[in-house]
């Protein structure tokens, strides 16, 4: 009889969710395709005018990325609830928060990480200047984990409810607004050649806050709802 370590549980759940994600190709590519389509539609609708596109580029990329990342949020705990895996998580002697952190990290790796890579290419399409590319990358790296973390809390609160998809979207978008504002402001300033570190610090603070509080809130929501 040997005890399993908490670290092993974290890695096992992370590996499990990544495997499931990678075997569900369509769900993996859905947000990515959505992201491409939204940005492309904007470019087609606004016309090939470098100055117009450059002005709206940060907003277009961030709004598209934000909407794309909400697409997959609903699925975070949904299938686990349906097939009884969630019960097994709740009945594990290991802290639920470790399992939750692993699931959030897997969600970020599967949905946001591809978006970040794609954003670098789409930046070219909307004439984002080279100097703004690095700030865009930084805002995405700091901002998208906040989206996954805050999203997890609401996904846990709404999983299993009738019409949870639309409810989740309505609840989550207001919470995403601070991330959107500071991210777009950062990239905007970079495009205009202004200082942008202040906004980045705010994003970093939001990430620190979300990373410390959201896993607890998610675990508690699941406990409150399912025992």
């Amino acid at each position: 009889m040997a005890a399993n370590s908490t670290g092993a549980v974290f890695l096992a759940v992370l590996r499990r969710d990544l495997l499931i994600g990678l075997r569900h190709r369509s769900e993996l590519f859905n947000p990515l395709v959505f992201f491409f389509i939204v940005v492309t539609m904007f470019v087609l609708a606004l016309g090939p005018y470098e100055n117009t596109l450059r002005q709206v580029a940060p907003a277009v990329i961030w709004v598209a990325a934000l909407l794309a990342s909400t697409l997959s949020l609903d699925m975070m705990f949904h299938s686990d609830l349906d097939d009884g895996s969630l019960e097994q998580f709740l009945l594990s002697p290991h802290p639920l928060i470790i399992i939750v952190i692993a699931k959030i990290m897997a969600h970020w790796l599967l949905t946001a990480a591809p978006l970040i890579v794609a954003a670098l290419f789409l930046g070219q399409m909307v004439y984002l200047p080279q100097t703004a590319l690095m700030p865009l990358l930084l805002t995405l790296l700091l901002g998208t984990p906040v989206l996954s973390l805050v999203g997890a809390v609401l996904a846990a609160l709404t999983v299993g409810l009738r019409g949870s998809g639309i409810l989740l979207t309505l609840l989550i978008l207001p919470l995403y607004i601070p991330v959107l504002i500071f991210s777009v402001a950062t990239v905007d300033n970079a495009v205009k050649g202004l200082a942008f570190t202040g906004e980045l610090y705010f994003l970093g603070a939001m990430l620190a806050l979300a990373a410390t509080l959201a896993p607890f809130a998610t675990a508690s929501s699941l406990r409150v709802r399912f025992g």
Partner: protein
Amino acid sequence: MNSFSANALTCIRNDVVLFSGLGFRLDGGDILQIQGPNGSGKTSLLRILCGLALPDAGSVLWNEKNIQDHRQDYFKEMSYIGHVNGIKMELTALENLTIAGALSGTNNGFTPLETLAKMGLAEYENTPARKLSSGQRRRLALARLLVTDTRLWILDEPLTSLDDYGRQLMRDMISAQAAGNGITVLATHDPVDIQQHKITMINL
């Protein structure tokens, strides 16, 4: 010696009292079978016993300690197999069992591969659970009992969709659990047919 007891449990669902004042006491080696018609509260009782749901009144004690106050200690010693299997269709049988082993608090020294062989799933370790038959999925769910070393099993309809061989396997597992001073609580309509051990019955 472990003990598992329920004191004056009451469960109310949708304004209907499913059961009230229900109590029992089990010691190591005991088997408890819960019977009752559909909708009589078998699953509700099991979910209360495993700590997933709270009773409307009463308490569940493991080694004389309330399970709600000592959740982690209790979950280390308890395995619950619900009527849904808790397996991932996208993962192979082996991957499913590996994650189950990692989530449990203890392991009994058998590798997931050996456990699959014991459950008659030896050739299926790399088969996605989606491609298994429903009986095989049930066996895979029940295999979780063998990767851990828990002293209390709570099983909801464990024999569902199992064939004769699978049912015999399950009976042998419960017998072995009782012989090893473990406790089993199961809800099932079918007679359990274990001669070596006395089975306590509760009719809801």
